[in-house]
């Protein structure tokens, strides 16, 4: 957990206050934040999304809060990279309703190059989730020069085509440089390599491609 200073202006005065970047919660405390909005979830068909970081790295806690939500009829979603032991995946899969599942790069060598780990587990976990008959939305980060070349898109399409029917939703997440601020705070460094913005046209082409293989495409920021 990190703390850093921030300046807050009140009238003519400027006061320094600490902004904590994290806080310890019990399951009951989290649930007390969730339950007051239940009327809104009921109306919209929405619910709670557990994100991060990587929520599967706090599997014990995640399991207990998912249980509580399930008991109370609250819809849950888990936003994950899928990089977790099968046993944990199974436990969470039995409790959550929806998975927002990142697929970055299908070619294993390149996946290792850019993320440091192999994607074999990630892909097999995805197939396992399908076996659990869970609702899944694929999230694909569209990063110029890294995930966007024709070969990579083709690899992804092949996999998605294979899974079409079991999964049919994909979110395209276009790259943006908004992490710059967070980066400088976390690493105390200004060396943030900014990449070019993703053009609307290329997003449109991607949308067409994935629609053609039967996916509903959402372009989100």
């Amino acid at each position: 957990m990190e703390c850093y200073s921030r300046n807050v202006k009140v009238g003519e005065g400027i006061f320094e206050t600490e902004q904590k970047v994290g806080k310890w919660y019990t399951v009951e405390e989290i649930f007390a934040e969730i339950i007051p909005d239940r009327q809104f979830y009921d109306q919209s068909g929405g619910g709670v999304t557990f994100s991060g970081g990587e929520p599967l790295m706090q599997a014990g806690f995640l399991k207990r809060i998912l249980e509580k939500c399930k008991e109370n009829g609250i819809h849950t979603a888990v936003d994950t990279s899928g990089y977790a032991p099968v046993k944990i995946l199974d436990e969470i899969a039995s409790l959550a309703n929806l998975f927002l599942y990142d697929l970055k790069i299908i070619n294993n060598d390149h996946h290792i190059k850019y993320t440091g780990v192999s994607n074999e587990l990630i892909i097999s976990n995805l197939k396992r989730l399908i076996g659990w008959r869970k609702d899944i939305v694929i999230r694909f980060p569209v990063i110029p020069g890294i995930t966007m070349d024709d070969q990579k898109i083709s690899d992804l399409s092949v996999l998605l085509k294979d899974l079409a029917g079991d999964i049919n939703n994909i979110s395209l997440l276009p790259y943006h440089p908004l992490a710059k601020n967070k980066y400088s705070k976390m690493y105390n460094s200004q060396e943030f390599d900014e990449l070019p913005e993703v053009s609307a046209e290329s997003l449109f082409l991607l949308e067409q491609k994935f629609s053609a293989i039967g996916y509903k495409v959402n372009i989100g920021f």
Partner: protein
Amino acid sequence: MTDRIKKLRDNSLNAINRISEERALLMTEFYQSGIVEQVSIPVARALAFEYLLLNKQIYIGRGELIVGERGPSPKATPTYPEVCVHSMQDLEILDTRKKVSFKVHDDTREAFENKIIPFWSGRTHRERVMKRMTPEWLDAYRAGVFTEFQEQRAPGHTVLGDKIYHQGLKDIIIEIEHSRESIDFMNDANALARKEELDAMEISARAMIRYARRHADKLAELASEEADPVQKSEWLELEKICRHVPEHAPGNFHEALQYYWFVHLGVITELNPWDSFNPGRLDQHLYPFYTKGIEEGSLTKEKAVEILHAFWIKFNNHPSPPKVGVTALESNTYTDFSLINLGGVKPDGSDGVNEMTYILLDVIEEMRILQPSSMVQVSKKNPDQFIHRALHIVKTGFGQPSVFNTDAIIQELLRQGKTIEDARNGGASGCVETGAFGKECYILTGYFNLVKILELTLNDGFDVRTGKQIGLQTGKPSGFKSFEELFYAWKKQLQFFIDIKIRGNNVIDQVIAQYLPAPFLSLFIDDCIGNAKDYNAGGARYNTSYIQGVGLGSLTDAFTALRYHVFDNQTLSMDRFVKMLGSNFGEQEEFRFGLIYETPKYGNDDDYADRHAVMIFDAFYDAVNGRPTPRGGTYRINMLPTTCHVYFGSVIGATPDGRKAREPLSEGISPVQGADTKGPTAVLKSAAKIDHLKTGGTLLNQKFTPSFFKDENSIRKVGSLVRSYFSMDGHHIQFNVVSADTLRDAQKYPEKYRDLIVRVAGYSDYFNDLGEDLQNEIIRRTEHGEM
């Protein structure tokens, strides 16, 4: 829009708001003629109305499809000297002020100086009222405890039902004759008053018929001199319409709208009633005419839209007539609050959304002008498609339409004793006020400064600003040994001042009933003709008087701060707290910081704070609701400020919630600006804790950036938010869609924008919590979306 509409719209936008002396001069002439002394007051008023309609200039603009102006030309705004007369100084202020100005020409000045002011000084309704107010009322009024709606404008506040779509004025005159026949001169002590009122109504009706004929004659004249064949045929078509309505019931779409417009002009020429006039459930009324015209082939959709565009522009030509003195701060706007209702349910309770509803929504989106105002009534019976269409317009950021809960409105009206049919045919008008359209006189009597009462309580009833003991002596604040004792003292002061307000209202009601009847307006609101009683004297089927509570958010936070710091945590003694407020926080900026950032606030679904909102609401309700009015009606509450939260703040010093002296209060039932930091769902939960169904309207504003409406999915989510709030019986919500400029302002003054949420990247966050780069990025995106 067509070229002709573009031109008319431009003319309307470019017309200069100015004071016209025409009405005042004609009124002066009439009152000097000696007739007034020979007839009853209602008849005198009707004859004055007739005099105006027969002698005022007729304005007809090229290309217009609906004709008639209140003044000699668009935005030439009359004054109502029989109600209140502007002084030379008032004219100066109106002419020169930066906002909401009205130009004053030299001949206007001359007319005021030489004719209008000399005659009317001492004869106005305002003076009549003020002369009869008690010293304690005047003290409270001057201290800013409440405002008085009925000193400068006629009561008004009503909306038309469907009467004119079935009856011409000649049919209404027959109704009058029947009512006259049933007057019992043997046994009814009020028989003569009844007859006079009916006579006045008949005179007014006939005057309006002649007024329409004057337009028809002028149109014929214009046609005879017109070279352009298209314009000529249009003049002739309009001439036909003006000979048919309002004397006869309208036979088609165009006649229906022109008929309404003549009635509207009549109402705002007779007097200067609040919220001008209002066609109400316009989609319901026009739909049968529209479908008939389309089926017969006499109307096309394009033509209907064009006529509606022209109709819309007429409202924009008629700014709210300017007031005098202090009330200019109450509601400083050109808007005259004609709030057109769309959607809702039919009298049988089924879904009222129809093709005309969507056409009118298109009109609103395309016209984008200040007046008229518009809103959508959302019932559980209405489809989501309807809400989504409305939200698409909200997204464009021009502030319309606002969104109302039909099912709550109906329950409110039923609780007040309306029949289910009258309730379903009703809606909300003005800002948010609930009424049974066509059947109810539901007047607002003034804003009430709930926060000022706390300031008085903390000063033992003494008003620091005016230096007078105007309230009860409930004791020095240091004497309150518990929060309950403090709240009880506030309640006693509240009751004391509500009583003063009501006593004053009741006198004013009777002054108006006697001296300021509105026989023309009375023609159109049931059951005035049947009762042979004026709208301003209790003739309507339902009569309600409202007192509007202002400052709920601020007061809740103030009470919460006092409970938290003085009683529960003993951070500060009451004495020192009050002293600190007296010095406007003086050296205690750091403590003020704590009051703003580290004390529980209303709007965050936190019961520690929210329970005070409920306590305040219940106390206000208990003090007002159900008390009888002289017109045979009932007092009720609603919670809206228009802009009065600014004036009311200006008469109060520093408050316990951390607000500095003279700053505005919270508006409607919205949280204090910047106090809500847990998102819109928390705001709605807090707002829903007071019992909306016990009011005649509440007002809630929420700020969003355009990105919240960016695609169908997002719109669906906002729609869900609305449905959720309405399922908790929330009455109204208005979305304030912020611009890139607002975001830039938020960068400069973050403490004013603590509640500003923006959509970031798959999630939303408080704008203040974002780094500058991210903020700039979002500003850039917002700007991009604006283009």
